[in-house]
């Protein structure tokens, strides 16, 4: 609760700073405020919090872990935004405000204890993102991204809302506790409305996390949005979507697993193949990352397919590894876009000679995304696969390993371009802010990869 209040008040403060033209203060105040929010969140750890406000919100360890992850990733991404928004427009304060609002929505999404809060949280996050996708007003592709995201998002919200309404129609309550007891107390007399409700909510949530066949908006929106917003969408937003997804299914629908598990199983397999195979054919690094985010959504769905005690931990560590590696990738991409103005694979040619540090960090990030041992990505995949194996989804794991191999191919294309295609180029300047972000993400990737006990069984 304190975290939510801190972030909301911070957003208003930043809005007022913009009004008084205090542009140099914007970034420090935002980062400082987010650090306060992060501390507030961490203080709730192991407090055994009960639902507050008549069962609307429960800030338990699960919520603490995911909101801390979301806030830290946002801090890292905002550090990259120094001098970025200024190039787009003069209204810099509003951009920070809207990002903070969407973060407030995310805090609601990971800590809800009532379906009405889930809906409001998702809406706050989505509405802010529709705007953020379109902030490059003179760029045609940014406009397209915003409009496409808005139309598709509004459509999927309809599914989600209809699902919530059907569940309310059979349970007569939005409260997760009541829904849980409805499911577990009379498993034989569950109304058909409830099953339809689960399926419709599933569609809505899968859309929000960008899983196939509901992924069609992802490449265009990720490609068209400004790069820093894409970084935000593919890390923080994706993590929050999965946290909300898992919270609902873990808490409420777990006893009905035989009903919805086959659906998610098929969707997982389709998502893996669609994401990985399409990523192979991309010429643009940014678009490749968009498709790879679809395939990572597939890996994260493993936690829901093999729902069990380890699911929360699995999603957490996977999201941590994926966010750290993706932030590195997007930070590098932003630097290169500054220099060459393009985001194709060719702009990486010969980077290792002039910027050995940048090339090294990006290599580690690609290895982590591909799931090579000694990086965090490997631990993430390992936890997911072992969860799935413990529930005897052997074929799923075999298919996933095939996909991981496909993934290695396109991730290593960047590495090959950087190290083995020598082209004379000038050095890419790396500002201090970027160095901090790169170092922190690198440290997280390697630390978790080498010594996973750091975060084992947090949740």
């Amino acid at each position, binding site marked *: 609760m304190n975290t*939510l209040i801190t972030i*909301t008040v911070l957003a208003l403060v930043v*809005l007022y700073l913009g009004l008084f033209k205090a542009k140099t203060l914007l970034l420090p105040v935002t980062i400082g405020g987010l650090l306060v929010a992060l501390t507030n969140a961490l203080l709730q750890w192991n407090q055994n919090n009960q639902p507050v*406000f*008549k069962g*609307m*919100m429960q800030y338990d360890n699960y919520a603490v872990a995911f909101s801390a992850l979301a806030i830290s990733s946002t801090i890292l991404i905002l550090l990259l935004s120094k001098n970025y928004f200024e190039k787009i*427009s*003069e*209204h810099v304060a*509003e*951009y920070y*405000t*809207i990002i903070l*609002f*969407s973060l*407030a*929505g995310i805090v*609601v999404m990971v800590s809800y204890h*009532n379906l*009405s*809060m889930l809906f*409001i*949280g998702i*809406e*706050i996050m989505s*509405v*802010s993102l*529709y*705007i953020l996708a*379109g*902030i490059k*007003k*003179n760029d045609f592709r940014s406009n397209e991204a915003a409009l496409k995201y808005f139309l598709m998002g509004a459509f999927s919200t309809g599914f989600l809302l209809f699902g919530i309404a059907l569940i309310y129609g059979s349970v007569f309550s939005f409260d997760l506790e009541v829904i849980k007891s409805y499911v577990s107390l009379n498993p034989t007399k569950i109304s058909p409305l409830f099953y339809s409700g689960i399926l419709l909510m599933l569609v809505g949530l899968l859309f929000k996390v960008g899983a196939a066949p509901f992924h069609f908006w992802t490449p265009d929106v990720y490609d068209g949005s400004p790069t820093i917003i894409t970084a935000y969408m593919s890390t923080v937003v994706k993590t929050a979507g999965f946290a909300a997804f898992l919270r609902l299914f873990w808490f409420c629908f777990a006893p009905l697993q035989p009903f919805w598990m086959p659906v998610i199983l098929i969707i997982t397999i389709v998502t893996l193949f669609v994401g990985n195979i399409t990523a192979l054919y991309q010429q643009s690094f940014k678009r490749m990352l968009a498709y790879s985010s679809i395939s990572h959504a597939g890996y994260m769905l493993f936690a829901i397919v093999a729902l069990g005690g380890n699911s929360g931990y699995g999603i957490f560590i996977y999201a941590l590894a994926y966010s750290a590696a993706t932030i590195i990738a997007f930070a590098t991409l932003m630097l290169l876009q500054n220099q060459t103005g393009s985001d194709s694979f060719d702009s990486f040619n010969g980077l290792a000679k002039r910027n050995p540090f940048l090339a090294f960090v990006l290599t580690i990030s690609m290895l982590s995304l591909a799931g090579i041992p000694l990086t965090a990505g490997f631990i993430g995949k390992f936890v997911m696969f072992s969860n799935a194996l413990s529930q005897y989804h052997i074929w799923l794991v075999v298919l996933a390993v095939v996909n991981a191999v496909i993934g290695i191919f396109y991730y290593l294309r960047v590495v090959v371009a950087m190290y083995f295609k020598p082209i004379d180029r000038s050095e890419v300047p790396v500002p201090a802010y970027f160095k901090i972000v790169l170092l922190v993400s690198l440290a997280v990737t390697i630390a978790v990869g080498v010594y996973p006990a750091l975060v084992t069984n947090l949740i």
Partner: protein
Amino acid sequence: MNISLFYFVAFLSIFFSLLVIFSKNPVHSVLYLIVTFFTFTVHYILLNAQFLAIVNFIVYMGAIMVLFLFVLMLLNLNKESEPAKSPLLKIAGVVAGMCLLVTVAGSVKTLHTSNPIVLQSPTLGLVKNLGKVLFSDFLLPFEVSSILLLSAMVGAVLLAKREPNDA
């Protein structure tokens, strides 16, 4: 009295919604849709859901229908500009329609008259009760949705505002 009124209004709803589909002129369609929504409002009042009735009246009949009319005016629909449908599309339409028909027929077969629903408390849909629930049980969602509105407002202004270098 109540039952016959219900059947009369239900007949009107179906009648006007059929007119929405069958009228050739899109402006007429929209006007019939307004009448259809009005009959829905009457239904809500019959069900004792005052708040829903008022919201339906103001938002659907008022705001959304005006929006529809505006879009129609802007689109400039003509017979000439309508794209000709390919035979394949027509066949697909027939197949889909038949599938729907079979599904509807199948579900109609299992129809039976349900027990009349008795409202547990006759004051259920009154504005007063809704307000009480909104400010007690659902206080937090109610307050948090202010963030949603504020965020949408800031965004709308941001997107609509002219940049100084646009000229």
